[in-house]
């Protein structure tokens, strides 16, 4: 993927950078659309939670991170994995449960891991990744590393005890964590107003002494800017930061969900704010994107996805004899 920060390279122009963001968001969108089709055809199984509509959040936040930073995510993490630079072939193979998958077929859609880019999972327990992120940050602090850990979770997680315990601990110890709350207004099928006494989640984080901001999560540029500012503050030793990223998922919670708790008008209204469309419109208006270059981008991504699917289809399965590998470490530390 393109947004894996590459500070050593020539600094991209502003236009190049924005085109990169577009490519990332579009890649996530098309990848997931392919997943829906593959799921319907039973090639992908298990739970499948789609990020469609929320692409600006992962894309914008991860554009603000450095290569050594860490990312902890949720079960709706295809976007984070791709935006962070996990190779698409490895993500797709994981969806297929193949040996070449980024978790060797043991994780599936909800548990994408890649040590090489600092992605410490896809965590399928709501709120379960938050303490983990705090601990990663603690280790960095104790070892004087300048690393930042970005921790993604949703509005649903903000009702969990682990959310509150972790925010308190991170603030208490001034740990370098960037809390990214993807507020898509629904905890699965329960609207935010039905689950939170106060729906202003950023304010809630503030109460723990964490500098917080609410950001338009449908605007990738706004997200990136807010994230850069927060990361700067964290690296400067100011302790954790909290971003509430207001967004919306265009599709149901998961494949089996009939979406009966939302009305179509609400969905349509949010679709008008499609983050990809918004960026396309802006780039066109500035003259940085033509019909041809957009078509070229789309066909490029289409081919990449087709290759990933073909590779996943062809990839070997993990041998059943290896079923119990990775329950315990295979090599004891010297």
């Amino acid at each position, binding site marked *: 993927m393109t947004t894996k920060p590459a500070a050593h390279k020539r600094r991209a122009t502003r236009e190049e950078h924005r085109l990169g963001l577009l490519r990332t968001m579009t890649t996530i969108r098309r990848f997931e659309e392919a997943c829906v089709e593959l799921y319907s055809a039973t090639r992908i199984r298990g739970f499948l939670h789609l990020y469609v509509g929320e692409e600006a959040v992962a894309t914008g936040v991860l554009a603000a991170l450095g290569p050594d930073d860490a990312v902890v995510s949720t079960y709706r993490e295809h976007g984070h994995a791709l935006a962070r630079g996990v190779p698409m072939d490895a993500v797709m193979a994981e969806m297929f449960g193949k040996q070449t998958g980024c978790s060797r077929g043991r994780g599936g859609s909800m548990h994408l*891991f*890649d040590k090489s880019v600092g992605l410490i999972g896809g965590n399928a327990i709501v709120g379960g990744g938050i*303490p983990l992120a705090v601990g990663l940050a603690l280790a960095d602090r104790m070892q004087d590393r300048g690393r930042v850990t970005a921790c993604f979770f949703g509005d649903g997680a903000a009702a969990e005890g*682990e959310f509150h315990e972790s925010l308190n601990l991170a603030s208490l110890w001034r740990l370098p964590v960037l809390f990214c709350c993807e507020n898509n207004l629904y905890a699965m099928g329960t609207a935010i107003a039905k689950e939170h006494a106060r729906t202003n989640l950023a304010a809630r984080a503030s109460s723990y002494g964490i500098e917080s901001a609410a950001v338009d999560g449908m605007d990738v540029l706004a997200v990136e800017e807010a994230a850069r500012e927060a990361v700067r503050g964290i690296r400067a030793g100011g302790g954790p930061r909290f971003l509430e990223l207001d967004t919306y998922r265009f599709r149901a919670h998961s494949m089996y969900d009939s979406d009966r708790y939302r009305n179509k008008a609400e969905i349509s209204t949010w679709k008008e704010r499609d983050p990809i469309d918004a960026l396309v419109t802006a780039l066109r208006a500035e003259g940085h994107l033509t019909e041809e270059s957009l078509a070229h981008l789309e066909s490029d991504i289409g081919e990449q996805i087709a290759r990933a699917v073909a590779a996943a289809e062809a990839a070997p399965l993990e041998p059943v004899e290896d079923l119990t590998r990775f329950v315990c*470490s295979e090599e004891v530390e010297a």
Partner: protein
Amino acid sequence: MSETLETTYRDALRDAIREAMRADDRVFLMGEDVGDYGGCFAVSLGLLEEFGPERVRDTPLSESAFVGADIGAAIGGMRPIVEIMTVNFSLLALDQIMNNAASLLHMSGGQFNVPLVIRMTTGAGRQLAAQHSHSLEGWYAHIPGLRVVTPATLEDARGMLATALRDPDPVLMFEHGSLYPMKGTLATDAGAVDIDHAAVRRPGTDVSLITYGGSLGKALAAAALLDQDGVSADVIDLRTLRPLDDTAIVESVRRTHHAVIVDEGWRSGGISAEISARIMEEALYDLDAPVERVCTAEVPLPYAKHLEEAALPQPPGIAAAALRTLG
């Protein structure tokens, strides 16, 4: 011969922590009241003064967050020792222990191991009533990806931690609350011990008493009672509940043909059931009587002393069970 020193289980644990922290900068201790207070059971008394607040970290009462944070810190290159005050509080961190510590390595296809040691106090016998008297080590032994150790002797209290810290994967160490004041002598150069094998604490020929942790002393007392009846008991200290040392269990049963499992956990679905099942699987044709189990009565532990004593395994009950197997 090496020199010996008079010590206690508590002091042996502290010496082990101190030695580990001196040897490796990555090792640190974290938990509720481990610092200023000196540890709820005084295990970490004095460590704050020696190592400072960065490495002896008092935490908020947030079991899930600080256990989760230690998992993160372990992944991040540290070697945390977490103290959970008592096993009942570990339930608040069960999500982290099970869904993260035990699962991450496998879920990530071998990419993220969690070199973490979680110590906690377990067991009853101190009139602490229903919420502070659990023996849930058997529960944790159910979970693949964890190692569960139960030091029952001074040597193990002194030596298991170092080995546990060398383990690349999470180790849960259950310290029975009644053992902390236990006195005895220990070699001054006592150090790391293996955490793979069970130990025969008293060899015998007629019946196997299979136990661990806080029940070891009771099993040994029962063995002394049996001795008076001319019955020779083989007392096995399991030491590690996961992975179980099947070989030691089976070898003992092959010697004696009669087995009694003594477990302070409840009987239904407990580790005693697992041990019994393994004996059936691997040594059925050596059994000359059904396996007997002496476990805690199926009640939340009561406060009153006589009720608590009645609920827990006691030497006469263990001896009686042994005699039942002998017909």
